[in-house]
């Protein structure tokens, strides 16, 4: 601690020579007191693990004993050549793309329906629509395993009753279908969350502005397009951010529903790939290289998005 104090003192001396030293040390002491514990934990549980993962990713390491087999970029090379990993990256982007184009608009529509307006029983609808988000991810996945059961699951029975001549599908066993099936569950689970955010955002949209637009002769669609949505801008930007990161970090539902990438590693996301090929196989070095890639993607997106898109929201 004394080393820190000395350093802090030096800095303050250099920066502000005109003011008495004592007050400045007090200020810095206070700051340190507040910042240090948090920063210590942050460093210990976030920064050190990241640095460690980066280090492990350069070794062929099974998790036991010391790091001995340095393989340079061998893990990354192997990653690049592994087809399931490439498809995992594609799938993560696929889920992200559908989330943005289907899930968020759906959440917005429902928020407009039940968040305001004169719909009867909208409070009840609001509650029902939010229920899926309350379930844990594990419970959600297990419920949907029954829904997607290839024999007498709800999905096959329901479609079979509604659509004459519908053939029962192997929702989770067919590689052309499995990602859509998974996306369906993710939408069911998470649209309620975005809907709530939109509803909260709608509270802040002034009725007077919309009314003024109507008086000026705008129809309802125009009011929505030119008044309501722009005013919801910051909420929408936030949900896009959360949705993208959520898509990349999704694990539990995908892992359980696809039983670890079934059929035959055709349905991995980056995170399930990491768990299966990095952890379950005792290849911690290899798994670390996946983690580094996932971390890099998330970090680049996060920084870029915050700097470019969210900037104006912070400035306000």
């Amino acid at each position, binding site marked *: 601690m004394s080393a820190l104090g000395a350093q802090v003192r030096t800095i303050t001396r250099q920066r502000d020579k005109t003011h008495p030293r004592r007050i400045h040390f007090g200020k810095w002491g206070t700051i340190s007191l507040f910042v240090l514990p948090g920063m210590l934990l942050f460093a210990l549980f976030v920064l050190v693990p990241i640095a460690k993962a980066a280090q492990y990713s350069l070794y062929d390491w099974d998790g*036991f004993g010391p790091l001995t087999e340095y393989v340079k970029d061998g893990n990354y090379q192997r990653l690049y050549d592994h087809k399931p990993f490439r498809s995992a990256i594609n799938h993560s982007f696929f889920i992200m793309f559908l989330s943005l184009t289907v899930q968020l608009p759906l959440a917005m529509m429902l928020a407009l329906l039940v968040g305001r307006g004169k719909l009867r029983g909208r409070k009840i609808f609001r509650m029902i629509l939010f229920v899926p988000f309350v379930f844990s991810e594990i419970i959600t996945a297990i419920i949907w395993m029954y829904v997607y059961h290839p024999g007498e699951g709800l999905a096959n029975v329901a479609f079979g009753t509604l659509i004459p001549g519908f053939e029962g599908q192997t929702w989770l066993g067919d590689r052309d279908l499995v990602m859509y099936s998974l996306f369906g569950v993710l939408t069911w689970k998470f649209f309620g969350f975005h809907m709530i955010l939109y509803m909260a955002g709608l509270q802040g949209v002034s009725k007077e502005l919309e009314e003024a637009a109507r008086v000026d002769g705008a129809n309802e669609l125009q009011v929505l397009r030119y008044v309501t949505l722009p005013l919801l801008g910051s909420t929408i930007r936030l949900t896009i951010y959360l949705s993208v990161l959520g898509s990349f970090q999704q694990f539990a539902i995908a892992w359980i529903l696809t039983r670890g990438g079934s059929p035959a590693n055709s349905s991995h996301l980056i995170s399930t790939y990491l768990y299966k090929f990095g952890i379950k196989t005792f290849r911690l070095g290899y798994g670390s290289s996946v983690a580094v890639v996932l971390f890099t993607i998330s970090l680049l997106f996060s920084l870029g998005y915050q700097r470019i898109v969210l900037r104006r929201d912070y400035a306000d």
Partner: protein
Amino acid sequence: MKKFLPVFSVVLAIVTILSLGLGSTQPKAAAQDQVTITWWHIGTVEDQGAYWQSLADAYMEANPNVTIEITILENEAFKERLVTVMQAGDPPDIFQSWGGGVLWQFAEAGLVRNIAPELEGEWKDSFSAQAALELYGQDGEYYGVPWTWGAVGMFYNKALFAEAGLDPEAPPATWEEFLAAVQALKDAGITPISLGEGDKWPGHFWWVYLAIRLGGEQAFLDAYNRDGAFTDEPFVQAGEYLQQLIDLEPFPEGYIGLGYGDQAGLMGDGKAAMELMGQWAPSVQIDNSENGGEAIQGNLGWFPFPVVEGGAGNPGDVLGGGDGYAVGSNAEDEAVDFLRFITSAENQAAGAKIWILPTVAAAESAIEDPILQTILAARNSAPYSQLYYDQFLPPAVGQAVNDAVQGLFEGTLSPEDVASAIEDEASFELDE
């Protein structure tokens, strides 16, 4: 930002020093008269949990200075927690182990105790499942012992066989006869084979057994020791023979999406005629059936995996596995003594009452169920006993087998693709 950086770098330095310090402090267990044995098992089924508890109680009564702390974990949870404590260098004293590659990996890292000095002699000679015992050690060292061992074979419903005009007392012995029986069952409107391939491992038995029949011990050892490869003829042929079976469409509707529970349930409800499974199958069939296994009880039979004409394997070779307990590196002598107590003839005989197929010769007479007796005979007389691939091989290769074979069932991989997918992982993991 400029003010922030120096503070930050100091913090980082402190953290680094701290984490280094934490890594090097290892608590050392002091030798005491009072001994605590930590024991992790996966007997989540009620009567098994009670059985282990009764052994611990009996041992503690006879040895008042010993306390046995039992932790019961579900199978998958156990594997994950074990890896965590192993990586922390703090193994339990006695823990569930299937032997083979995973256990050897622990041994190389010095995380298990060599019990060869205690084992040699009377204790070692008491085992009838010698092939199984060998999987708990290598190079003259032993790290644990098996307490149950069985074999995978074909369970079949005799009533459904009779319904399809097949002789229920003369099940198919060769692959040709087997395919003919499948066709006959199909023609009679019966689902010939139950399979929950969503879980992968139930289907991989088929491919592995065909590889055993076609290539025998030699082909596998060659591939494992890298004198050969998993792309060698028998392994490609295994896929081709399995393809013949898949082409007959003998499996239940949507089987790629079903799990093992579904597979067992179809057998228990009498809705499918056969399943290829280990010795535990009957109790799981009943557990997953709709009305207490009424449809299967009294009708269940067992026969060994069919022989493939011209294959290099011995018809008596079996694929199997079981459970054992390994001893952690920090374990006291009492833990080894307790392990000897677990596998005593008397306690093994008590286990046989609750469907534990014993590994000790003196306990075998306690088995009354005729199917278990048949499986026991097949196990003991097998000239070559292949442990499940996913236990014997490095985990990544075992996983590749499961995944690739699922691709064959799904129709997306050819027999050659399956062999080369496995070889890809094997060459990466096994080549020095």
